[in-house]
């Protein structure tokens, strides 16, 4: 059972305080989207063995959604960061690069964070 740090509370809590929310950084496709784009938005998921960016909600805490970079094979957590981000922040990417190599960090890096 995981331990995660809520970036809003700063609290380290066990998994039963959180609710998972699937893959992070999906872009919503609205009425203008093509069938292919909409299908990808609804159904296509990376499901990697390795570094995964995912959504979590501090359900029994502050109620906030946040994002986590986690290894699905070893359960190592490289960091958590606010949901209002376009991609993992530099500190998380550095940690991924440090632990899994620059290639792994590059695969999940999506540019500068957008957190406020």
């Amino acid at each position, binding site marked *: 059972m*995981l331990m995660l740090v809520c970036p809003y509370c700063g609290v380290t809590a*066990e998994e039963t305080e959180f*609710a998972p929310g699937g893959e992070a950084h999906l872009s*919503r496709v609205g009425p203008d989207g093509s069938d292919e784009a909409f299908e990808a938005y609804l159904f296509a998921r990376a499901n990697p063995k390795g570094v995964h960016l995912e959504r979590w909600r501090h359900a029994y805490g502050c109620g906030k959604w946040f994002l986590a970079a986690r290894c699905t094979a070893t359960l*190592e957590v490289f960091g958590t960061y606010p949901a209002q981000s376009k991609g993992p922040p530099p500190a998380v990417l550095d940690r991924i690069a440090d632990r899994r190599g620059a290639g792994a960090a590059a695969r999940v890096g999506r540019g500068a964070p957008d957190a406020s």
Partner: protein
Amino acid sequence: MRLETGGRLIDRTRPLRFRFDDRWMTGLAGDTLASALIGQGRILMGRSFKYHRPRGPVAAGLEEPNALVTLGTGARAEPNVRATQTELFQGLRADSQNRWPSLAFDLMAANDLVSRFLPAGFYYKTFIRPRAAWKHLFEPAIRRAAGLGPAPKAADPDRYDQVYAFCDVLVAGGGVAGLAAALAAARTGARVMLFEQAPHWGGRAPVDGGTVAGGDPAGWVAAAVAELAAMPDVTLRTRATVAAVHDHGYVLVEERLTDHLGGGPGPRRRLWRIRAGRVVNACGAFERPLAFPGNDRPGVMLASALRDYVVNWAVAPGPAAVVVTNNDDAYRTALALRRAGISVPVIADARPAADGPLPQAARAAGIRVATGTGIAGTVGRGRVVAVQLCDAGGGGHVTETIPCDAVAMSGGWSPAVHLWSQPGGRLRWDEAGAMFVPDPDHPPTGAAGEPIVTCAGAAAGALRLPDCIASGARAGDPAAAAPPAEAEAEAPLLPVWVMPSGAGPRKRAKMWLDFQNDVKVSDVELAAREGYRSVEHTKRYTTLGMATDQGKLSNVNGLAVLAQALDEAIPRVGTTTFRPPFVPVTIGALAGEARGAVFQPLRRTPLHDWHAAHGAVWEPVGLWRRPYCYPRANESRADAVAREVLNTRRALGLLDASTLGKIVVKGPDAGRFLDMIYTGAMSSLPVGRCRYGLLCNEQGFLIDDGVVARLAEDTWLCHTTSGGADRIHVWMEDWLQTEWWNWRVFTLNLTEQLAQIAVVGPHARKALEALGGMDVSKAALPFMHWAEGTLAGIPARVFRISFSGELSYEVAVPADRGVELWERLVAAGGPLGVMPYGTEALHVMRAEKGFIMIGDETDGTVIPQDLGLGWAISARKPDYLGKRGQMRPALADPDRWRLVGLMTLDGSVIPEGAYAVGAGRNANGQTATEGRVTSTYFSPTLNRGIALGLIRRGPERMGEVLTFAAEGRRVQARIVSPVFHDPEGKAQDV
């Protein structure tokens, strides 16, 4: 037999009476059930699972596979308890298992006579045909013949509790390594928890000898425990087994609180749910049996176990014991036996030479040491009376037969790596020790990828006392100095997997690997011959290691035999997976207090007690309990529901609607946000007005509905279904936080803050007017409007909304004033014929009006358009959640099943879940269907059955008669409008 002297754990001044099967016996305080039985001359304690062979204890601790008993009687009976771990108490009652009619005379032992015909995989091969016979004939018969103890049928009367705990260092095992680790860690100021499964500290060291800090190990153990106990942030527990180490340092420990007392006032057991910064596994090692013919005969034990019985409890099977070994450690048993006055006629050592200090000490004590010698067989019925010696490297030609009462065997040791391996630590094969040891280069890792388990002492392969205690101290604190310790040097062991090594098939069929499940060397070799190469497959085919002991004694021997048969190296064959728990954990401990009244949270509305006092019968709605109806004396539920419906339609009904979700949405962007969340337009709703809204997921499917009221220019109140309050609030926050995070909107779930009462029926207005305080006239408060004010002196918000088709007000007041309002309404409504009504009347009335219910008419595949709710979708809006999904071709298919009303031709009620039978067959060859019933009731208003259903092109087929099939009968029903009652809606808009 009980020895005249000795026994470091027993109190000879305190005899205890206990009953085994139907005989009362006497043991001593400090005994285990196994030691007490041995003390009484009882070696036979159980029968094996498959062949029902007689079995005695082979071990003295938690690894015991044979001596399983049912402890206690009646509801407290607990099957499959290890007698070797059961502490004796006054009045203990235990029963042997897996025998019929009695342990000594077991008819099923005939299985043993045909064991040649019951090899590995026998069941798979034999009971294949006819297929039905497996379920009805073979399996029940086999289960009867081969069961362990039966589970009690009555509810467990004992309490169990759980506690969450946190520590920096958790040490599993209170032997000298664990104590050294705990001391070293605690001296750094760390928060330390130390758990020992046995009732006493020290592990093997006090039995095995040597010195620590210049004295008896027991003295050092006592001093270490005293020092730890005095530290404020150290938690020490005996009788507490570390059952599991999970991801990120999550550790489960089962503590036995009252078992050793035979019960007590508090919880019987406690499950500790611990987060440990790191774990030190100091669980020791398990001695391995030797696979020689007849090694399962009662009286044959592990050498360390016989040593424990003699030293700890002063009991032994008899006055003479033969030792058979491949290592020096077993000589300690021979020496301990001699010191206790038990004769050791011979030590059979498979090695060609034995010249270390321990063998020399044995010879000096006058014990005969026969090197290069093995055992060709054991003699005895029900218990061993002699062993047959042979050349350890030969085929088993008997050279000598030696009478004895016990055989102490040692095939070396296997570190207890379970707590290392469970969370993913890898093992490596140690050639010198012929054992799997933790591979320090591949530890289990935690949240940050850091190693979270360290093995110490025998669990790390450090079997000798000085190494053991030093590795413990190091595991606790790398900088710690270990206490000085000394023990005899030991010569290397000789791996011996089959004894004698040249034994033929008949002898191999008598060499037990897994005692409980009756898996022999011949079974593993058969599996290899039949093509099983994977150790995991061989395990399942032969059942090796699948008994309640999970292969603690058998696994390494079994996979070594497999490796030999496959001509592979042992590390290439590998081990099976170590899964939690380390030892069985009582289900009650896993459940903890979650039983009875607190099995799950039960949510009560602010009016719950009133309902209970007025005879409500309950309907679970999620975790809520809502009144289903309020039956009067001698009234059936159906009659009560009919009365409540008719009274509400004709006079006045009150409904507790407090469970409805109530979410406030406020902010400059709230209107824009709600336009995205709801299919309809909420931003255009005027202040003071209410509008019915639908919520869809991105697939387009309907997920919730409810009335939205605009409270102020920037504030809306969203009602959800009773089950939807939390879910929809989370849904809103998800979109606000992760998609439209720049929109300035706050939400707040006020569901629990407000009691909500529906005042329904032709006299509803009169009832509110009687309370006074607000103008609730049609002019002041028209249909689908709301107003704020004071009713009967209570601050209230009144909504003119209707889920029944009648004149209806829903009144929301602070939850702590709900009862006050309800009682005022009951009083004021008395002259108006008021009656409370429950959820069933609510459902009947909404169905009579064709109003849909989330979860009845919807099932996650239904879109609003299917339900004739296209009017609640704003076509002008460029976007809302679900709009893109609803554009998919399948959701625009004119053949979709759509909502209609259904009336049976004979007036009966269609069974729930009935399907409309179509023409022909579907692609799977089943009868085709073209619709289904979603809601079905007896309508008191129409005095006949009515139903709502989803029918292919339903609204285009008005008047058509369909056949519905369910519950083995067929009913004909006509497609009609879903609005059965007051289609013009006159009643609600007055």
